């Protein structure tokens, strides 16, 4: 399943969703206190991914006009902190021509919303925003038609403003809510969303393009927002799952009797699955500890983190045709200088602040699960298969959750809670501990990347051979003009469960490529900025690179040499956005520390839809990227994670935050691209290049502090 996730992340093709609507409808009371009519019991989308969909859904599946003047907008997307709640509310408000405060966005509840695909791959902006806009624009037109019919006028003569339809000739106006009360909107909204309807051009945006705050941010600062791990059901128990002592270990025997004898504790075993539940977490933990003491396991030998890179290299499946241009053979033969280097990246964890959590409840053969996952529809399907019930009898609800970063594509806690709830006949909550999250959640892939580059006698790059083992193919291609290239993404045998992460393989591939570009620039005796620009045609990458360098004052700072202080830069593109970063580091040789003092990053993702949120994403990406660049790494041996704690796995904290200088470039003549991932890919190589400038030491392994200490 994880490899499937990885593969899906790498192939970003959207698939249109299809929807079957039952004729029967029921009235659903929503959290917002509004009554809306929704279709019952049928899956609103069959597509498992894609992100856009909506092309064949009825308007009613997307938009509902409430009697009080608010408008419910339904989406399968999940809010995990990256801003879709504000952004999709803006999208709907823009096309409906209403104030954004009137939008009530209903997200990620398989009983209520269409399938917009998993929240991943930066797809919300390019796919779901247009899908919501089309739904809203179609709704606006249908409402205008209804008003025109009531007034017996041509709809073309009517003007829509602030949720009111106005007949300029007569001065008559009617609000959407009045219309919903008087006309048969439900009938009209059975029509399909029009995929070719005209959307508001960027230069006419009123709500999109502005810094709308997350609509429920007040609930966040007052503590009233309920995260998946905050959901409580009547008569609920706290569940715990017995984990093997090491990867691959098989349970041979266990004695459940003592735990079963404890009042209030329930225990279940189904082959390798053992779980217990109790009225409090502590009681459940104690029961689990008692059970675990009686377990005997058959362990299997596992690769350790020290051997992981040689293991990945040895097991690389290099088959398949590399992406190539020209002839690398000829290119290297013609080269006057050839460089050959290998880069390595460690496994890292996402460690979202909210660990995996789920609460499951069975009632009359129907399963309801509240959980924190990126793909509610996918998890609905997985649960239906696991428990062999039709998917319409499974409802997955994802309350706005506490972070994901690509780490919550799968529904482990949901399945565990559902198994326990089924066994015990009561609602059960399963909240993973931090150690479980470090150990049993999938990791970002480790990588070995082999680079070979050839320069001609003028210092131009003429041959490029790039083999990336294990991280995946994101951003693997070089954006530079090189006549002869061979580029290959090779899979391997991963000793850890691995899967998506913010921008996935692009971080590793960009680290290697942009570090190696710096090595080639040095070999050519060229300035790293000039060397890149000399090989760069892509005008968007050139623009961000030049902007970052200008704001950072690259040429002047490059001339100023201070002992153990250095600057570096890097750029890249992925998911149709472009980024460049300049960084200054200070090396503490005695302690072997790299202090990143200043980062200037320029980012461009087309027309900016929400500047404040975009800034948060770019700031967050840079700081998050510093973690794996400098210190984060999963250490493991004999199938055990040795640092499954924030004590030994060092994520960025306040003290690690550099001075951040961010240039957001608003390019309005291209479609908006997602922005929650690509801003992470330039920081690690920019830091590596700055470390080289400061010390003359080339660090080719992430995390870099460990690697630098070995070379100091």
């Amino acid at each position, binding site marked *: 399943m994880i490899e499937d996730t990885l593969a899906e992340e790498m192939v970003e093709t959207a698939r249109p969703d299809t929807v079957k609507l039952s004729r029967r409808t029921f009235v659903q009371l929503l959290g917002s206190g509004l009554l809306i009519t929704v279709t019952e019991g049928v899956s609103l989308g069959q597509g498992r991914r894609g992100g856009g969909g909506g092309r064949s859904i009825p308007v009613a599946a997307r938009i509902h006009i409430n009697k009080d003047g608010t408008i419910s907008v339904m989406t399968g997307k999940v809010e995990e902190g990256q801003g879709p709640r504000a952004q999709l509310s803006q999208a709907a408000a823009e096309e409906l021509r209403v104030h954004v405060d009137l939008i009530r966005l209903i997200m990620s509840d398989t009983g209520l919303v269409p399938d917009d695909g998993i929240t991943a791959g930066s797809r919300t902006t390019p796919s779901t925003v247009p899908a919501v806009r089309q739904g809203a624009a179609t709704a606006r037109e249908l409402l205008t038609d209804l008003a025109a019919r009531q007034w017996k006028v041509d709809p073309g003569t009517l003007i829509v403003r602030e949720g009111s339809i106005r007949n300029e000739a007569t001065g008559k106006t009617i609000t959407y809510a009045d219309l919903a009360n008087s006309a048969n909107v439900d009938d009209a909204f059975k029509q399909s969303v029009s995929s070719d309807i005209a959307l508001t051009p960027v230069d006419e945006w009123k709500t999109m393009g502005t810094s709308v705050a997350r609509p429920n*941010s*007040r609930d966040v600062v007052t*503590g009233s927002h309920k995260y998946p791990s905050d959901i409580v059901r009547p008569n609920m128990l706290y569940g715990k799952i017995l984990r093997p002592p090491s990867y691959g270990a098989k349970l041979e025997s266990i004695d459940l009797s003592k735990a079963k004898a404890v009042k209030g504790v329930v225990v279940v075993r189904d082959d390798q699955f053992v779980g217990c539940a109790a009225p409090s977490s502590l009681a459940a933990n104690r029961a689990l500890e008692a059970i675990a003491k009686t377990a005997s396991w058959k362990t299997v030998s596992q690769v350790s983190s020290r051997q992981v890179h040689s293991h990945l290299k040895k097991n690389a499946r290099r088959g398949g045709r590399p992406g190539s241009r020209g002839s690398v053979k000829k290119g290297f033969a013609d080269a006057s200088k050839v460089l050959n280097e290998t880069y390595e990246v460690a496994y890292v964890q996402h*460690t979202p602040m909210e660990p995996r959590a789920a609460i499951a409840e069975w009632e009359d053969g129907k399963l309801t699960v509240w959980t924190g996952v990126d793909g509610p529809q996918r998890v609905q399907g997985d649960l239906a298969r696991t428990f062999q019930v039709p998917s319409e009898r499974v409802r997955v609800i994802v309350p*706005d*959750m506490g972070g994901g970063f690509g780490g919550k594509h799968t529904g482990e806690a949901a399945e565990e809670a559902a198994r326990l709830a089924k066994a015990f006949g009561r609602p059960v909550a399963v909240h993973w501990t931090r150690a479980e999250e470090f150990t049993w959640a999938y990791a970002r892939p480790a990588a070995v990347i082999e680079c070979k580059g050839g320069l001609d006698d003028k210092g131009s790059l003429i041959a490029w051979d790039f083999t990336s083992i294990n991280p995946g193919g994101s951003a693997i291609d070089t954006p530079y003009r090189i006549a002869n290239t061979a580029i290959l993404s090779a899979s391997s045998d991963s000793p850890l469960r691995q899967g998506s992460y913010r921008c996935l393989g692009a971080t590793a591939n960009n680290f290697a490529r942009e570090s190696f570009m710096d090595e080639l620039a040095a070999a050519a005796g060229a300035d790293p900025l000039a060397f890149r620009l000399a090989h760069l045609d892509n005008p968007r990458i050139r623009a961000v690179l030049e902007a970052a360098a200008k704001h950072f004052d690259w040429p002047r700072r490059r001339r100023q040499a201070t002992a153990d202080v250095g600057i570096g830069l890097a750029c890249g593109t992925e998911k149709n956005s472009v980024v460049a970063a300049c960084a200054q580091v200070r090396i503490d040789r005695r302690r072997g520390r790299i202090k990143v003092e200043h980062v200037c990053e320029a980012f461009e993702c087309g027309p900016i839809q929400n500047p404040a949120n975009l800034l*948060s994403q770019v700031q967050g990406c840079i700081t998050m990227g510093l973690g794996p660049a400098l210190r984060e790494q999963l250490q493991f041996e004999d199938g055990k994670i040795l640092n499954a704690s924030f004590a030994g796995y060092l994520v960025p*904290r*306040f003290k690690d*935050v550099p001075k951040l200088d961010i240039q957001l470039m608003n390019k309005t003549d291209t479609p908006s691209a997602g922005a929650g991932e690509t801003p992470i890919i330039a920081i690690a190589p920019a830091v590596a290049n700055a470390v080289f400038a400061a010390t003359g030491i080339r660090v080719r392994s992430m995390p870099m502090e460990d690697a630098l200490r070995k070379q100091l």
Partner: protein
Amino acid sequence: MDATITLIVNGQKRTVVTDPERPLLDVLREDLDVMGPKYGCGEGLCGACTVLMDGKRTLSCITPLGDADKKKITTIEGLADGDRLHPVQQAFLDEGAIQCGYCTPGMILSAVALLKENPRPTDEQITEWMNGNICRCNGYAKILNAVRRAASQIKEVTRS
């Protein structure tokens, strides 16, 4: 062995009869339905569970319930004065210092405790104090702005 423990949670007297070894965090969440304090690590290393105990910053995940007997516990739910947000809450809103928001209650309470002890902190002092609170969205830059803003507003209130 169960014990009777009395807490003053956000101004309300709450009595529980339970195992005093249970973490204060668990009792707030599981017995008293106070969900603001979050589980993040269970080891006192991330600050998500931060509450104020008799006004002092306290990591509720490593505080045994027994140590909180008869103490005043302030959680994020108890900061606002009716509809009026605490200046630190308001500053987080004004700066948009929220991404997923899961760390936010702990961040806000840590900042409240800081400003109580030191109403005019320097950036270095804010960074030093807040370093125990992790934000995995890495929204530190805006959180720092929010704490600065709250400090300046509290100063203004004090002056007027």
